[in-house]
């Protein structure tokens, strides 16, 4: 319950941010940071708590994004309905990918590669079929107004994103405090032992990938409405998949606040580099890649792992002092 209280506090504080941050460029920064936390938490639900490393979360993200865009542009549907449809279709794609992979017991690196291949298949398809605008991409007409899921002020977008992200974090909290979560983590840590205790790994993983897909898809919906433009590379390309996994790996996989920590850390680093060396092509990705290598080599449990290790050794030290 203390964790839930902390979560409430953090999100209450996040809610008020736009009142203090008025510069448009800073608002964009906090939006992109929170958006990274959302992508990261979505991945974390499956990868962190479930131990199933996906390299293809773009498959869910892109589906959510294209759904809201295509429904608006081709069918004139209201984007609020598109939001629901985008989330639902992303869940559908997740269920399909989950079914084909988990049914046959695909794990570890193989699961990672197959998810990547699925995202690539979708990227090629969206590059080919006409209703997505193919390689040219798709442009959502600018029409600000809450009814159109577009906002004249960045603050409006921020609060939309805030609500979706809150949903993702509450889901992660629930995973840490429910039977479903206990089973998911049991499967992650030892599938055979979990089965011996009556856990059905397939069912558990299916639920996890669908929840994960839902929030990735909603992140895609947000992206489409915020930038009003999509093409196959943006929607289904590897960049989104990489960002999704990098954030929780940096912050701490399988922890509630890890994705938030990771998102803040990564955006802080890229802001600083932009200040110091300027906006050179590829540089922020060079740094992201380097961070990924360093984290896996030296801190596989991420920043929150480092923090808890430090606090624990500090505590042990004080206990030692007491004994002495």
């Amino acid at each position, binding site marked *: 319950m203390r964790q839930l209280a902390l979560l409430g506090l953090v999100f209450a504080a996040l809610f008020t941010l736009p009142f203090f941050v008025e510069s448009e460029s800073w608002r964009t920064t906090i939006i992109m940071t929170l958006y990274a936390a959302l992508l990261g938490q979505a991945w974390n639900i499956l990868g962190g708590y479930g131990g199933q490393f996906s390299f293809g979360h773009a498959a869910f993200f892109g589906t959510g994004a294209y759904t809201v865009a295509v429904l608006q542009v081709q069918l004139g549907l209201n984007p609020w309905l598109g939001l629901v449809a985008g989330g639902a279709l992303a869940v559908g794609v997740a269920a399909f990918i989950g079914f084909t992979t988990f049914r046959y017991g695909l794990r570890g690196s*193989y699961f*990672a590669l*197959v998810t990547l291949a699925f995202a690539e298949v979708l990227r090629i398809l969206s590059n080919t079929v006409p209703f997505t605008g193919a390689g040219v991409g798709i442009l959502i007409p600018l029409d600000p107004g809450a009814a159109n899921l577009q906002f004249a002020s960045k603050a409006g977008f921020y609060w939309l994103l805030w609500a979706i992200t809150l949903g993702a974090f509450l889901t992660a909290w629930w995973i840490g405090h429910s039977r479903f979560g206990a089973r998911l983590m049991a499967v992650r840590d030892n599938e055979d032992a979990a089965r011996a205790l009556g856990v059905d790994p397939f069912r558990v993983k299916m639920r996890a990938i669908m929840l994960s897909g839902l929030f990735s898809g909603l992140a895609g919906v947000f992206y489409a409405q915020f930038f009003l433009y999509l093409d196959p590379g943006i929607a289904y390309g590897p960049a989104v998949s990489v960002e999704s996994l990098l954030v929780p790996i940096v912050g701490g996989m399988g922890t509630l606040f890890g994705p938030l920590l990771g998102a803040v850390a990564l955006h802080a680093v890229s802001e600083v580099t932009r200040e110091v060396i300027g906006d050179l*092509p*590829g540089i922020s*990705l*060079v740094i992201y*890649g380097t961070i990924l*290598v360093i984290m896996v080599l030296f801190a596989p449990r991420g920043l929150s792992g480092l923090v808890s290790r430090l606090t624990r050794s500090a505590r042990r030290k004080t206990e030692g002092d007491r004994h002495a």
Partner: protein
Amino acid sequence: MPDMAIIVPSVLNGLTTGALYALVALGLTLIYGVLHIINFAHGALLMLGLYAVYYLNVQFGIDPYVALLIVPPGMFALGYALQRGIIGRASHGRDENILLVTLGLAIVIENLSLFLFKSDTRIVDVPYGFQVVEIFGAFLPLPKVVAFAGALITAALLWLIMSKTDLGRAIRALAKERKGAQLVGIDVEHVFAMSFGLGIACLGVAACLLLPSYYVNPQVGHGFVLIAFTIVVLGGMGSFVGALLGGLIIGVVEALGGLFFGESLGQLGIFLIFILVLVFRPTGLLGHKV
């Protein structure tokens, strides 16, 4: 329905491309077979090899085929260092960590290249670039024919190294059983790094053979990564013959798929093969079912 006059050249073309795919996949399968790791940076390292060949040519006028004496050894050294310095230390008992670290390396290498070499697509200008050879009534670019022959020769060389040298014996012993190899005094870390180096040297050869009929840009590796993985799983992880056959098959599938359905759907076929094989027959077409 296209007639034979189009299909034959298309198949031959596919075979020459496929031989190069096979060469890239050979490196990958060697690394997988010995170290049991999936090297996600394979495509990025190929791209690096291609740039090496490119700059040797434009800066020093070294012909890509002459660069065969320089680039593969250089790539070997790079591979050895990467394995010993970074990849070998990353697993912490989970093979996904290796995938992550090699993904990180791929991102760094690609974007550093983007920064250093810019995003322009470059080609080398060699006198034989547009010469053609007639085979079975089809006209094939000379560099592709050379690449085909070169890939087969390299595969044969690799096979010789693996079966006739002490290094090859040590590698095979290690691939089979790590503990046993350690017991008979094999320096495991060294042999692992040698294997990784050999796998990356294959990329060096592929780069020299590829560039005269291809191009280089920082993203060029992308196209090869999943194709090489597809070949490796199709042929059975760790199987040399499988990688060769798989490479040729994929080359032909891609060429024919492109002919009948257009280029991007041809690629789609490759990814679908990849998914289907991994899901239904993860030991590959030639591998035994566990």
